[in-house]
């Protein structure tokens, strides 16, 4: 194992070691997720077009997303009222439950030519430096691989329009140079990528 790999392994282990003390309860999360199943699927793999899958998302990502829905930085007519009723413990439990579910790539019609163009763009626009080379996400950064195409399009367009409310402004900044065609190509590449769970 090279020194660099060891450092990376240590870095990932460090985060896991620190975060585990505060992790939510998967079983409690399973019960609390029952009202979410109608849109997001019982195991967090959604089937309705436009609805994001939450299975295999990093727990910190889901938790921060719920915080943003609750405090109004992120707005959605369906999600905002749900999040408004959640306690901090509910959010931790739900996030832990979804993180523990194996993700599946969404069965959807994806344009291979667009996806090939999107693969180039993902490198040019540094998507992989936070979302990881396989787009599986990490920490507060979501898994994009195998996600619902319509949802990916909606979010990327919202970041471009500066209405998506990201934590540190990184995605809003990253989306500014994207053309409508770029967004389309990127979303197709993300949607077609195999859905491996986050580390």
């Amino acid at each position: 194992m090279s020194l660099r790999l060891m450092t990376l392994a240590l870095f990932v282990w460090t985060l896991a070691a620190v975060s585990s003390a505060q992790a939510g309860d998967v079983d409690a999360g399973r019960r609390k997720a029952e009202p979410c199943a109608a849109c997001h699927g019982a195991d967090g793999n959604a089937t309705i077009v436009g609805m994001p899958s939450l299975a295999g998302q990093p727990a910190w990502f889901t938790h921060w997303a719920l915080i943003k829905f609750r405090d109004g930085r992120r707005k959605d007519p369906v999600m905002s009222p749900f999040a408004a009723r959640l306690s901090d413990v509910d959010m931790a439990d739900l996030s832990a439950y979804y993180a523990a579910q194996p993700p599946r790539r969404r069965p959807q019609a994806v344009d291979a030519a667009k996806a090939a163009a999107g693969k180039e763009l993902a490198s040019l626009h540094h998507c992989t430096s936070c979302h990881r080379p396989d787009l599986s996400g990490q920490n507060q950064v979501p898994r994009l691989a195998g996600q619902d195409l319509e949802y990916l399009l909606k979010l990327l367009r919202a970041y471009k329009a500066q209405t998506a409310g990201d934590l540190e402004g990184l995605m809003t900044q990253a989306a500014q140079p994207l053309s409508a065609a770029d967004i389309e190509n990127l979303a197709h590449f993300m949607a077609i990528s195999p859905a491996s769970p986050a580390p």
Partner: protein
Amino acid sequence: MLRIALISVVVVLTNVFALGLVQAQQPPPAWQQGRPPELSNSPLAPVAAPPTPTPAAQIPVNKVKLPPGFKITVWADGILNARQMAWGDKGTLFVGSRVAGNVYAVVDRAGRREVKVVAKGLVMPNGVVFKDGALYVADIPRLLKYENIEANLDNPPAPKELYTFPKEAHHNWRFLAWGPDSKLYFNMGAPCNICMPPDTHANISRMNADGTGFEYVAHGVRNSVGADFHPVTKELYFTSHGRDWAGDDFPNDTLHHAPRKGLHFGWPYCHQGDTVDPDFGQGRSCSEFAPPLLKLGPHIAPVGTRFYTGSLFPPEYKNRLFIAQKGSWNRSQKLGYRVMTVELKPGQPPKYEVFAEGFHEGNTVLGRPTYIEWMKDGSMLLSDDFHGAIYHITYQR
């Protein structure tokens, strides 16, 4: 001038590329900007912020080492992403945050601390100060004023918007501090790791408490998130974060002294007072700029910067500067994660000493000391934005 012309050409070309004629490499995320190609596989990245505060019983505060007679305890927990602190007139402690988007009020109820969220959904409301019954909060991009807030902690008033700061998010979470001139001092950080900043960025500035009378105070300041005024001379001292991706040991983060307004402190041309930047320092000399008072260590991330004016700590601490260091990310071995003191005596070099250490073990983060506030009895409150807690450091001889 040639450089400016070249940048203009690059900007024009970039715009042409963006129109789809050619697909060009795009700017990386802000934290990664300036990283040389040979480090493209570096695992180094900013330490992610947890979405939950750590319960007091799980915070490894027993690992913190202090000088003899000092003691540290968890004073309050459950304050997600706790950053700058400010006392209200009636004994409420207000606490800002960064990614949590909250401003908190901590109220002491017979030794038990109750934490209330008084503002939420703000964009990085790091800076908080208090004056004449009003809480001032700096988020991005606004300066907000909450009047008569201590009487309305459960139903906070809608804030007045006093001022609009630059809208860029990067390095624009800011400290707030009242100067001896009763003006409000704050930073406007560089919108990048290393770049030629617009005039509106990379400085410390001030304005009147009502948001009027803006003026620059210090130029060439990459990212300062902590400052204070000397208890005797009333002059401004501030810390600043040096650039990333130029090596584990370069450049140092720095302590600066600004006895008058208008000085330029070197960035992006000169780092740590003695080394010109390989790209932006061409044709420039460090002798053109006001040098730092002290090199604080590479990537150690100085945040809370406060003079000690109390009388609880031993007399040698009187008027010493305390610097809370959140700790490094852009370095293969973690450094910082501590509180240091600086003794400043006329005609003598600054004396730089460890006060509190042990907030990391090797590369494992045990805590991130962030901002400092003083209790009435002279003891210290120290926020930790990783655990979402506030520590209390007391002294008994």
